[in-house]
């Protein structure tokens, strides 16, 4: 079973994890280490789930519980899409329907094509049976096993997820929501309008019950309940393991800031599609489970209200929180099938007692959707993080840590930064004729620039002169109209941002684009995305290779943080949004370094820093350069420029107006004019 801890539980530098659980106030419980405690809690939960039908042998209640588990499984799937990747899907029930109809069609009497030799191999595999048809000839009866259909439905739904997602996932969040709503609407309509396959609005009937070792599940609720428990447990483990993997980090990076994620090497389209496909797969498998349990399927079972209900569950439990959405789903199902019924009965009794007619007939269960609406509004207004939030607030630094002497750290000996020291000289980056325009406005005009290997080039110029646009054009965030950018002999104009990073170019942003709701350590580990290799299989199975890679990545990230002395290390588990301006800049540089670049683009790295901090960072940049990294920086502070740069390029109005050694450029007539306007010199 997985740990209850959702955020990196094994981080070495987590000083105060124990105090986060309320139970810590109980002295006995507090003595158990948190890791053991969470395993214990999960174990108890699993035991309770397994014993429930034995302790409470009421078939109707077990049936309700099995339904609740189906919705918990749906909530887990939608949570991957909405909670992890931040894509609001309002048509999620469509994938549920696809999984349901897939099994419905493959294990019922709905489809009965005429028998031909084509079906022989399927017959031999026991997937179909040969039955005498009503019109004389033999017909095919599909009888695919439930257990085989579970993964097939998942794969089929995932396929639909990819087909639907590929063109639409580029859309901005709320547009995506409306498109998914449309898709969620189309699927039941298609189901209704294709009676040959689905029996239309009447619904499929006689869907076969699953069998296990020759024993048919029939209509008893208990076996379905155990299948539900197994399904939910599997999906919980899958969710938790994905969340803590490279894939989960990439999803959260996209959710937090798509642009920064792309610039850090995350292929946005691929990871969004993956989230969509995995979420759809969860729903597909659940659809098969659900339809096998009900042994019928009608279009009404998969309409908009179902999508909304699952959304309400994850909003209630906590968007992005694996345990939260399970609890949310179970609680709302219990509310619906037990609590409201009981309350209605109780009110009927009260009505009879005090002789009030409407109380005797009130049916609270019919107002469940009203309650859902109220839950959505109230949660959004007062508790957006849900019952069990996905991220917990980190404790502030202790007084000791706050009072600790600042250790500045340094880059002089950097085992972690190892840009393949190349004997080559000459240019690393060569830009020529680069022109960028927005609408009619030309932001860059025919800019050329050569960055020598191991050099430091400073780009200066007044605000609005096109400096950041230059960085954006090089890193693929804006597409230039014309021109060429050659990195290490390779043309990179036209490459998407994540490919540019893979070419060895990492950057920081003038306006700071950290992932605000992720920790400092997670931010840096996302920087490593392109350097790590593990995929979904590795994450799910916790292969030794993946675990080793994760462990090494974490250690390397901490080592990179340690380059800044004790400024970031004590804050490794803090959210990026809690950092000071200077520490945000440092974290962005650490994140960029984590990708092991050969070329580092720094956009005003010292903005917002005081002179002492500026000096410290300038020294650190210098030692980075000494260790072999090539650097281009945008900077306004002249002393930083003079002390770091071998070469200065001056932009004004999108044009390069001067270029040369710092001291030469400083006395250049045109530069002085650009900066100073009419009178060239002071006094």
């Amino acid at each position, binding site marked *: 079973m997985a740990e209850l801890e959702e955020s990196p539980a094994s981080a070495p530098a987590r000083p105060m994890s124990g105090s986060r659980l309320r139970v810590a106030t109980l002295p006995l419980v507090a003595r158990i280490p948190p890791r053991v405690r969470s395993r214990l809690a999960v174990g108890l939960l699993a035991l309770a789930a397994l014993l429930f039908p034995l302790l409470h042998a009421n078939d109707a209640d077990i049936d309700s519980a099995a339904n609740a588990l189906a919705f918990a499984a749906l909530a887990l799937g939608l949570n991957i899409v909405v909670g992890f990747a*931040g894509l*609001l899907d*309002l048509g999620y029930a469509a994938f549920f329907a696809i999984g349901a109809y897939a099994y419905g069609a493959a294990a019922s009497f709905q489809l009965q094509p005429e028998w031909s030799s084509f079906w022989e191999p399927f017959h031999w595999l026991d997937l179909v049976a040969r039955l005498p048809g009503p019109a004389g000839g033999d017909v095919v009866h599909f009888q695919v096993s439930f257990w085989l259909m579970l993964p097939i439905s998942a794969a089929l739904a995932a396929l639909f997820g990819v087909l639907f997602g590929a*063109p*639409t996932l*580029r*859309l*901005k*969040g*709320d*547009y995506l*929501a*409306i*498109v998914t*709503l*449309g*898709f969620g*609407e*189309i699927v039941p*309509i*298609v189901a*209704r*309008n294709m009676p040959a396959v689905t029996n239309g609005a009447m619904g499929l009937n006689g869907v076969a019950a699953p069998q296990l070792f020759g024993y048919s599940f029939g209509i008893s609720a208990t076996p379905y309940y155990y299948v539900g428990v197994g399904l939910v447990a599997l999906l919980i483990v899958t969710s938790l393991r994905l969340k803590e993997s490279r894939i989960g980090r990439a999803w959260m990076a996209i959710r937090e800031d*798509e*642009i920064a994620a792309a610039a850090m090497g995350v292929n946005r389209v691929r990871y969004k599609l993956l989230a969509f496909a995995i979420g759809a797969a969860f729903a597909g498998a659940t659809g098969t489970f659900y339809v096998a349990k009900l042994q019928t399927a009608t279009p009404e079972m998969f309409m*908009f209200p179902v999508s*909304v209900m699952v*959304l309400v569950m994850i*909003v209630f439990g906590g968007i992005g929180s694996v345990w939260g959405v399970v609890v949310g789903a179970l609680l709302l199902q219990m509310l619906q099938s037990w609590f409201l019924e009981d309350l209605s009965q109780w009110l009927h009794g009260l009505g009879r007692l005090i002789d009030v007619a409407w109380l005797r007939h009130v049916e609270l269960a*019919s*107002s469940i*959707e*009203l309650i*859902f*609406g*109220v*839950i*959505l*509004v109230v949660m*959004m*207004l007062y508790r*957006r993080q849900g019952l069990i939030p996905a991220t917990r607030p980190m404790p502030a630094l202790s007084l000791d840590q706050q009072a600790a002497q600042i250790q500045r750290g340094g880059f002089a000996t950097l085992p972690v930064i190892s840009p393949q020291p190349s004997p080559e000289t000459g240019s690393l980056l060569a830009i020529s004729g680069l022109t960028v325009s927005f609408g009619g406005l030309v932001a860059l005009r025919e800019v050329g620039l050569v960055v020598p290997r191991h050099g430091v080039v400073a780009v200066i110029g007044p605000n609005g002169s096109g400096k950041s646009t230059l960085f954006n054009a090089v890193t693929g965030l804006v597409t230039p109209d014309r021109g060429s950018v050659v990195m290490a002999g390779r043309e990179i104009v036209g490459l998407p941002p994540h490919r540019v990073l893979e070419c060895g170019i990492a950057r920081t942003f003038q306006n700071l684009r950290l992932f605000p709701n992720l920790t400092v350590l997670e931010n840096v580990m996302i920087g490593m995305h392109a350097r790590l290799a593990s995929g979904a299989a590795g994450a799910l199975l916790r292969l030794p290779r993946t675990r080793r890679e994760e462990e090494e990545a974490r250690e390397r990230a901490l080592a990179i943080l340690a380059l800044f002395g004790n400024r970031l290390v004590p804050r490794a588990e803090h959210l990026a949004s809690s950092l000071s301006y200077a520490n945000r800049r440092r974290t962005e540089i650490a994140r960029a370094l984590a990708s092991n670049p050969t070329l580092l683009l720094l956009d005003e790295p010292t903005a917002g820093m005081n002179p002492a901090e500026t000096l410290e960072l300038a020294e650190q940049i210098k030692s980075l350069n000494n260790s072999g990294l090539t650097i281009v920086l945008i900077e306004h502070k002249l002393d930083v420029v003079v002390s770091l740069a071998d070469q200065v390029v001056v932009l004004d109005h999108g044009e390069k107006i001067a270029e040369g050694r710092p001291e030469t450029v400083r006395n250049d007539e045109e530069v002085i004019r650009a900066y100073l306007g009419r009178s060239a010199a002071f006094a």
Partner: protein
Amino acid sequence: MTETGVLLQQVVNGLSLGAMYALLAIGFTLVYGILELINFAHFNVFMVASFIGMWALQLLGISGQSRVLTGLALAGSLGFAFVVTMAAAGVIGVVIERVSLRPLRGVPGTAGMITTIGVSYILFNVILLTVGAGSENYPNPLPVHRWQLGQVVVELKEVLIWAVSLILMAGLHIFVSRTRLGKAMRATAQDAEAARMMGVDVDRVVVTAFFLGSALAGAAALIFGLYYNYTSFIIGYTAGLRAFTAAVLGGIGSIPGAMVGGLLIGLIETLGGQLIAVRWTDVIIFSILVLVLVFVPAGLFGRAAPTKS
């Protein structure tokens, strides 16, 4: 009737539906233009308003289609119904904004949209639980007048729909292009912070957008009732999605876009129903929604693609 005649007749029908969708689409566009929020509550503001219109007409003693009025009595009763419905819908819109959306102003992400889904659900279920699930026979005092124009028949109710829609849209156009508050609304849609720095009370602009959008939804709701002679708790969903598609097709944020988009969706609905099959109408319209968003995200009149960073 010849085949051309049938199609022309569907064009007439489509223009009537389109006028209704256009009025409804304006509400999406006004709010989106200012807050970049898709307001799902708008669907069911429309639905609730159709009931308010029904009650307003019933208050005048009109029920069903049996009691036909003419002349001043007809104009007066319809005028009363429109004013009451539009005012009430406008107030509902304002209350929704004040209570559930203003506290979330500036919260990034999808919180606002999720809230509007919740509000929409509440409105839907309040009507379902109080009025019931049946469909209501809509009071309609309009006499049945038909004019044969060549191959098509035009009814009095259609002329009324076109006239009301034209008047309301012209009024809206004058409001946003001539009045101080209307200009403030356009300025806020273009650059909210700059508008605020000019002294524009952005809260007031937002409330105005909600009021106007909801009031126009109210007019659309009454038109729906008079056109189809029924209403029910479920009408908001389909009509709302079609109107939203109209807003997207026209370019969300653009008022003329919403008008043109509405007419196009009305025509697509009736002609598509005629040429293909009514049961596929929703699939056609959603396909248009998806295709427009994917390939022409700015719509017909839109200025900015909705893929901002």
